[in-house]
């Protein structure tokens, strides 16, 4: 495996709330390699978005970030606002579910992309404008020359997401973080956007982190999968292993709960995710786990190798790898 371009170690994110400290991310390790599409999956509140907002330095002041995030040899935790500004959009970009909120409604699309270029590169206005049109073409916007002169409201949802991708890749970043980039889109448009992301990744060799709750999307485009639960990575596997031989009981539960052809009844995971203000001791999943024993309450399990996978379950070996 290529050496990771983004290396996250023991990342912790704590929010101070009126009800006390809420630890949203409770120590995660994660490597992202160049040219690879890595999935971070989990349900609401699992900490998947917060982890990467922390890496980007985009969390509000009420959040405390600890641990280490190293991008291309540079430590980002504790970096100054000025340093982070020079990194965001140049070395690492992030796109979100709602493209409209990432675009300025009163500026033309082309101008917004060239602003992004000129913020990080010495370029003439004219050169930036023509590069903006090229970028629009790369992300599959027809008549890019004319479209560059239009405003965000003149674009459909899918086209807006393409524009945001064009902005994100304008400076050929090493890492692109895509946070639920297709969740707000219709399924036929989702397919188009996933193709654009794959194309961009192949063309620029960008490392892509795809944050999603949709296991179908993961199956389509990702090579490696990190499954998060209650602020921890509970399983890390290659794409085929995670679907064929899930090792963590939570991953298995998640897959079993999906509707599939021929199933008479669905199999939900019992109970509901823990309150992160007071998560259960030990393994956070044990309150919903069919295999939980007393030992699961003592100490948070660390990721350990099981076959080709890494899994954070003290009983993974006994409970066995299911198919």
């Amino acid at each position, binding site marked *: 495996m290529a050496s990771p371009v983004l290396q996250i170690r023991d990342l912790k994110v704590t929010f101070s709330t009126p009800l006390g400290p809420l630890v949203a991310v409770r120590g995660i390790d994660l490597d992202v390699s160049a040219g690879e599409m890595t999935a971070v999956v989990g*349900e*609401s509140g699992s900490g998947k978005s917060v982890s990467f907002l922390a890496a980007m330095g985009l969390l509000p002041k009420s959040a405390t970030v600890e641990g280490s995030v190293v991008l291309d040899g540079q430590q980002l935790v504790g970096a100054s606002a000025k340093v982070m500004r020079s990194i965001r959009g140049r070395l690492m970009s992030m796109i979100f579910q709602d493209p409209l909120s990432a675009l300025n409604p009163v500026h033309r699309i082309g101008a917004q992309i060239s602003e992004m270029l000129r913020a990080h590169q010495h370029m003439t206005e004219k050169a930036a404008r023509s590069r903006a049109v090229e970028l629009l073409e790369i992300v599959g916007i027809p008549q890019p020359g004319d479209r560059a002169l239009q405003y965000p409201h003149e674009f*459909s*949802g*899918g*086209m807006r997401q393409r524009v945001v991708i064009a902005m994100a890749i304008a400076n050929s970043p090493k890492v692109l973080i895509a946070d639920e980039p297709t969740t707000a889109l*219709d*399924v*036929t*448009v*989702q*397919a*188009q956007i*996933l*193709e654009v992301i794959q194309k961009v990744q192949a063309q620029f060799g960008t490392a892509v982190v795809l944050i999603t*709750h*949709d*296991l*179908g*999307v*993961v*199956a*389509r485009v990702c090579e490696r999968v990190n499954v998060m639960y209650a602020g921890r990575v509970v399983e890390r596997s290659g*794409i*085929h292993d995670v*679907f064929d031989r899930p090792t963590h009981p939570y991953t298995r*539960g*998640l*897959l079993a*709960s*999906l*509707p*599939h*052809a021929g*199933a008479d*009844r*669905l*199999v*939900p*995971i019992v109970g*509901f*995710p823990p309150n992160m203000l007071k998560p259960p001791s030990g393994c956070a999943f044990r309150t919903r786990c069919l295999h939980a024993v007393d030992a699961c309450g003592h100490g948070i399990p660390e990721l350990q190798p099981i076959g080709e996978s890494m899994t954070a379950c003290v009983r993974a070996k006994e409970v066995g790898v299911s198919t």
Partner: protein
Amino acid sequence: MSVDTTPSTGTAPLLSVKGLVKEFHVKASRGVGRKKRVVQAVSGVSFHVARGETLGLVGESGSGKTTVGRCVLRLLEPTAGEVFFDGVDLAELSFEDLRIVRRRMQIVFQDPYASLDPKMTVGASIAEPLVVQGIEGDHQEKVVSLLELVGLSADHARRFPHEFSGGQRQRIGVARALALDPALIILDEPVSALDVSIQAGVVNLFDDLQRRLGMSYVFIAHDLSVVRHIADRVAVMYLGKIMEIGPAEQVYERPTHPYTKALLSAVPLPNPRIERTRHRIMLEGDVPSPVNPPSGCRFRTRCWKATEMCAMQEPELVVRSDGQFSACHHPETH
């Protein structure tokens, strides 16, 4: 003009919708003079729902699926068309009579957070339909039995919505919909806001309730996998029209409308081997604006099979196989 798409089971359907049209008037947002424009959200939709049956209504945003649901309940006044519930034409009813019929038709919305009053106890929320309908007596016993029916417990009645998780709140919404023993429930994206591990339990609940109580569902959703699981028949909508309707397994296994085929091929399946090898039909562009829909077949601007005829002549729903209909000049053959 409306084609009979009911399977010939002999008994009269519970719900029968004929030529339903719903127009919205919108102000043009730009330009001088501000011309009023008309959006036809639903353009002549006909379908039936049998007793104890689940009809899935699927489509992308702007397809009109939610508007159909609201017109059926007359939460929105249809512009044209007829809605027969248990043989009664709802348009003919007075406000008072409609209220009585409405006891038997209920709706569950997508957002379990928005559909419960945060200041009312769960018990009071569930009993509210009984109070509104002027049903006498102390409803406590009924509330407890409804809570138990949806997998909650009697002591939940005294608590407030904020004390519950999303899945539990959706169960409360279902309990409230069941309070008046409805024969039909419109489920409008009822599990879309829930995490998958929770969603499965709520889908099972719908299955169980139907088995026990025998009501019909119109299940409106954009998630085709969930619809396949729960629906007996499915109607695929695009820009205000039904493109294809028929038994769910048939439509999923052997779609006859190109749009259905493209839609199904776009759904990501949680299986990397299938995902990486199967042939996907990539539709170009987005759904056109309903303000100015394409002439003829509304799907033609994105269809790889479109010909001149598709622009000239609007295709009617035509039977393709047992109970399966589609509106296309160039249907897929199997």
